[in-house]
């Protein structure tokens, strides 16, 4: 899509609808030094599910700061998928340029405008028609330079009848105390395709994060969109928007969040069922410890016949100075639709604690077991080895809890 530069410059001052407003001039656009896959990069990437030690044998994309540093396609998947830096894809295929900014507006706010004007990097991933892949494709965005804005644009296209698992991990060097990550991701799930897209984030306390995700799901296609955030962040705001364009399109957005420190997160999701027979599930399980503040928004709009939608938000409060808000919204424009929502926020249930202690488990261990259970991965339908890996990541994040 063609963008209007003048309009973009105007939008550079436009705050986002939600989340704390950030002054973009406070961040640097310059990366320091030549990025390398050093020990800290490997270790930290592993904490967001990306195994860079296996980068030669797994399909992998790695970007550090502004630079796409590594890209490999598993040998037996050659001919099944295309993976390349977005700049290369735009040069190679005219139609990829047409897919940019189709599902999110570049004029939406200062973050999208900045991305359209100054963004650098991101990947283009295409799963070719009817190819079915069961080993995850992994991508990692790593921030290495202090105070930097990493602003990337990803395009994912699942061609008709294809199936794939994508894992994207975003993180930073453990010693970097501030920075801004803006990730624009546009996901096209074509007719009959099935995509499982999982994003795992791990940040430091001073980091700001503004993902902008747009999704389009066609006839009989399904997207499982999973998001996991563990530990600390400065401020995070995201509101993925999805259009279920076709008949019997399905989407499930599952969010699992455990935040501590003074982290602020405004996490939402909106799905518009335009076609008939759409199915939507928006699930958020959020744990707020210490002074963390979490807002969970969900909006389902049903415009097609026989649409079904459900929003569930469960919040677990581990501290009196934390805060969780749940804001579900349902809009129906068809009599045949069925939309529901449920929200529940509370602390660890005493009857559950007592029950576990009556099995000889100490109070601390029982609390930890309940919190781990609350961060339930089963709706994410991750492949076994990835689920085990994510479970380990959760255990690491909850260590000492």
């Amino acid at each position, binding site marked *: 899509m063609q963008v209007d530069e003048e309009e973009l410059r105007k939008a550079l001052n436009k705050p986002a609808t939600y989340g704390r407003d950030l002054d973009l001039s406070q961040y640097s656009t310059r990366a320091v030094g030549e990025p390398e896959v050093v020990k800290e990069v490997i270790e930290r990437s592993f904490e967001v599910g990306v195994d860079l030690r296996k980068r030669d044998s797994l399909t992998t994309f790695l970007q550090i700061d502004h630079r796409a540093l590594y890209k490999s396609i598993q040998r037996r998947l050659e001919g099944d998928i295309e993976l390349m830096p977005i700049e290369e894809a735009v040069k190679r295929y005219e139609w990829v340029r047409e897919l940019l900014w189709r599902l999110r507006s570049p004029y939406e706010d200062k973050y999208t405008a900045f991305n359209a004007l100054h963004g650098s990097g991101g990947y283009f991933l295409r799963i070719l028609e009817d190819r079915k892949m069961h080993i995850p494709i992994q991508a990692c965005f790593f921030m290495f330079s202090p105070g930097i804005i990493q602003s990337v644009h990803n395009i994912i296209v699942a061609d008709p009848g294809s199936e794939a698992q994508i894992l994207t991990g975003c993180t930073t060097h453990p010693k970097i105390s501030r920075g801004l990550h803006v990730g624009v991701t546009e996901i096209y799930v074509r007719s009959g395709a099935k995509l499982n897209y999982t994003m795992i984030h791990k940040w430091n306390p001073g980091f700001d994060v503004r993902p902008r995700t747009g999704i389009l799901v066609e006839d009989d296609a399904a997207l499982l969109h999973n998001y996991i955030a563990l530990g600390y962040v400065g401020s995070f705001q995201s509101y993925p928007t999805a259009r279920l364009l076709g008949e019997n399109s399905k989407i499930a957005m599952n969010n699992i969040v455990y935040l501590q420190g003074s982290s602020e997160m405004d996490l939402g999701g909106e799905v518009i069922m335009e076609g008939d027979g759409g199915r939507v599930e928006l699930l958020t399980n959020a744990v707020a410890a210490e002074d963390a503040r979490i807002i969970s928004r969900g909006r389902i709009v049903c415009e097609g016949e026989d649409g079904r939608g459900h929003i569930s938000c469960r919040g677990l409060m581990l501290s009196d100075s934390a805060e969780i808000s749940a804001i579900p919204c349902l809009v129906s424009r068809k009599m045949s639709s069925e939309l529901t929502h449920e929200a529940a926020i509370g602390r660890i*249930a*005493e*009857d*559950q604690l*007592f*029950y*576990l*202690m*009556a*099995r*000889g*488990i*100490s*109070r601390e261990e029982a609390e930890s*077991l*309940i919190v*781990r*259970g*609350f*961060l*339930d991965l089963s709706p994410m339908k991750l492949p076994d080895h990835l689920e085990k890996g994510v479970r380990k990541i959760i255990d690491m994040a909850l260590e000492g809890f």
Partner: protein
Amino acid sequence: MLLRVENLHVEVGGKLLLKGVDMEIGEGETHVLFGPNGSGKSSLVMALIGHPGYRLIDGRIFFKGVDITEKPIDERIRMGMGVVFQNPPRLYGVKLRELINRVARDRTREDGVLMMLDRLNISEELLERYVNVGFSGGEVKRCEIAQVLAMNPDLLILDEPDSGVDVENLELIGKELAKILEDRSALVITHHGYILRYLKPSKAHVMLQGRIVCDGDPDHILNQIMREGYRWCERCRLMRKS
């Protein structure tokens, strides 16, 4: 004496539920506790294991000769108590397998646990499910018993192990408990007495309005209750008083 309860007074929310309970259970003995709804049977269970909501006003509890009145729940359990609850909570996100492995740790050999699970007809599929989430009545009881047996306790406290269970599950549970109780002690609470087709307790107690009003031969007491209901115990209590 494995368990000795002396003059136990317990209140919940300002209401006195146990009004001076005395009880002694020796090594290898199985006792049965009868009583109508609301008589205080489950309160006694909660007080024995130390539920913080059940406030001890007076009395002491001794287990294995140690005064456990002030000890927290997990410590009492680790000393060798095991409870099968009547209405256990659902634990979302905690798989039955994970919980059984955790409670069995250091107490029961792995092959012993596997054989016990097999005898209780606990399938691999059930082990992968979240504890008590979507379980049938029979599954809840079988899984409760499996957890407690994995803990290998010296004293089993069974709160209505026969409630909400069909005939087949009752037989399965009854036979397994009978085998286990050959060499350890138990306090069995039962409303209908169905589980007594399989267990042979040495002594029965009847609880009315927070007090043990009658001790004696289990078959005789059960027969009387079946014939005349708890009115018989009520009269018996009145007779004793006079």
